[in-house]
């Protein structure tokens, strides 16, 4: 499964990159979501996959009785998901606000701060 997920992650990175390179900033945001999902998967898979054995300590025991899934990447990914969401929400607001001010979603037309030389 690790190998196949690795290939799938590659596809996610590739499509995410392609979307982020688009002129339309909404597509840029879609790409951002894809890439952050892919990155979370990379962290998760790098900690190895363990099926049907969540990192829990049974009642009465001091530590897990058998081999359980790697808890560390799970904790990291949990944090990353939430932060990724914060980033996404802010970026979406920015896009919305940018559209209100500039009336476009094309990144190369959003040039209030750096007008093109010929426009100056």
């Amino acid at each position, binding site marked *: 499964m690790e190998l196949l997920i690795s290939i799938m992650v590659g596809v996610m990175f590739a499509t995410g990159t392609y979307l982020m390179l688009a002129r339309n900033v909404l597509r840029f945001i879609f790409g951002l979501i894809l890439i952050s999902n892919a990155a979370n998967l990379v962290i998760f898979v790098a900690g190895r996959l363990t099926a049907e054995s969540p990192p829990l300590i049974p009642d009465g025991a001091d530590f897990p009785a058998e081999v359980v899934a790697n808890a560390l990447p799970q904790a990291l990914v949990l944090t990353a998901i939430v932060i990724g969401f914060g980033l996404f929400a802010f970026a979406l*607001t920015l896009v919305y606000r940018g559209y209100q001010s500039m009336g476009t979603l094309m990144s190369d037309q959003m040039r209030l701060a750096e007008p093109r030389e010929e426009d100056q």
Partner: protein
Amino acid sequence: MAEAAGSVPRVAGGPAGWISVLIPAAIFAYLVQFVPRVGSGEVILWAYDWVPALGIRLSILLDGLSLTFALLISGIGALVTLYSTRYLGNHPEYPRFVLYLLAFMAGMLGLVLADNLIALFVFWEITTISSYLLIGFNSDEEKSRRSALQALLLTGTGGLALLAGMIMLGNVAGSFELSVILTQGDLIRAHPLYVPIVILFLAGAFTKSAQFPFHFWLPNAMAAPTPVSAYLHSATMVKAGVFLMARMNPALGSTDLWFWALVIAGGFTTVFASILAIRQTDIKQVLAYTTLMALGALTLFIGAGTADAIKAMMLFLVVHSLYKAALFLMIGIVDHETGTREAPILRGLGRKMPITFLGGALAAISMAGIPPFFGFIGKEFLYKAGLEMEVAMIWITGTIFAASVLMFAAAGIAVLRPFTGPLAETPKPPHEGPWPMWICPLILGVLSLGFGLFPDYAETWLIAPGTWAVYGDYSYEVDIYLFEEVNAAFILSLITFAVGAFVYAFHRPLRDWLGRVFAANPIKFDPGWDQVLDGLKALAHWQTRHLQSGVLQRYLFTIFATLGVLAAFTIWSREALAFQLDLAEELDGLLFKHWAVLLFITAGALLTALTSSRMTAIASLGVVGIGVALIFIMFSAPDVAITQLLVETLVVVLVAVAMLKLPHLEIREGHRDWRPWHAAVSVLVGVVSTLILIAVLQGDIDRRLTDYFEMASWPEAYGRNIVNVILVDFRALDTFGEIAVVVIAALAAYALLRGTHYARRKAPEEDEA
């Protein structure tokens, strides 16, 4: 400050004035006590650990060379600051001027006294920066600003080269202390890095001392107030390069490279500057070019390197500092009291300004090399050393002969002509300057005469210890005298006077002729400098236009392409692909649910990228998100899966809300949204991501941290869900930071949306305005 100065006239510069005189005078008095010790051949070392971790020490090396320089710096410094109290005392920015001048003096003293190379470099840069500030002191004039920047860029570039050379030298010699380095000449000369070290050191020294082809900044630097020209650009700073070469002579000298580089550059500068000096009409410019000539001669004789040449060099160094500072100060008085420095319109000032004339004349006679002045001795020993050379005798002697002839003529142009003859009309009616001004050239002029009559004092105090330090041999017998016998050098002196008088007599037609010759010459260094700067600016502009295009797509393309290429290169160069894949094992045990999830995510990602419908894109993104959540569930991460599901729902809701607010959003980018270059980079990024992940999975996993959390979760934190315990206990601060990030994002988003309302409310007002 400026207003205060305007309403209350300053008397001789106020407190800034006398403080600025007192400090160098006190330093001079303090240094004088070392003269007997150093004169007897003693080398005084003193050290303070400055940055011990880096081996940088604030250490002082006081030998004949550094003491001579330090006395010149503090002595002439005291005179120049005294002079400035009247020259600039009423200038509204006078305190600033004093500050710069004292900063320069501190830097220059540090430079000559430093024993540590790095400390020397720091002081070197202080002189560069303070010189920049002083040249550009009249900052409302464009010429001043340009000259200042030119000097800064040229000497600053040289300074960087010098730093590189110093680091190499320090590593080769195993120490950054000059007192150690100077004893390891043989080791350094035999080292393969010797040639680069010499080139880098000379780049620093030649730019600082304005040797050809870096000579052009010095005449431009005369845009500075005249006391600055007298001090920095004649007596002290421009000699820093000479000082450096003299200082390093025992370590880097006596090789063919050193000899020819210095002899050729120095000689060429000398002759070139002599000719240019005659061409000038502004007397300050005449003096500037004779300074250049003197710097060339000093470089030439350091290169020549025989004991007699070094002795002549030390002698000429002192001779030149005394007379040239005096002449600059003299022309400053003339400028101050008549309003012009143009040689053709200055005549007959001697009767109106007798004391200035006296001081200037004493210095000029020394410069012309007429006995019994100090300048005569200097010239005699230069000739003597030149004639005794075994290599390049004709070149060195000829150069010095040409320079001496033209110095004789220049002395006439600078002093004889302006002060004698019938009085001419000047912009201001000429009168004698105040005493703090005329006393300075007078003192220096009297010294030029005094050392000429009693050369033994100069010999034992300055010249002998200086020669020992530069030549590196303390047993050499230094003897200087006014007149020994009628020898070749003396006869050459007589010829010099004759030819010099001839050149002076015909200097006006000669000047006009040279003006025509130079006007026809296509190679011009000063405009060439502008072309270099323009070229640099054009390059910067071109580069900025391409790298800083202001187009988000191009930035991202550059970033992703760089990422992909660098990662691919790393994978290739580290041979990270040397692994075996067991496909059978991989496919073994895969169930339908696994295949389904993989397929959903892959299809969702591809569809998001390729669709032109925004609804399809959002739905596909949802599929990907849910698919990732399913992977978390299948591989024992229920908490992560719950969060992922929650976040995924919120994402879709937010996007949907945004869509409602922006009904005219259209994802379509035009008819063709196929971007082959972007696709290529995307595929590259995807492939390297896959390869990196596979390579990571091939290696062993380090489970130490996980093991610790598993063992400590219950006994130490009383939690059975290890992931939760990590988040809220072991890594609680991280989680706190994460919450802060989300709060900040929410606040920022809120502010953005609020801003919309303000913008709406404000818009009509702006329209009215």
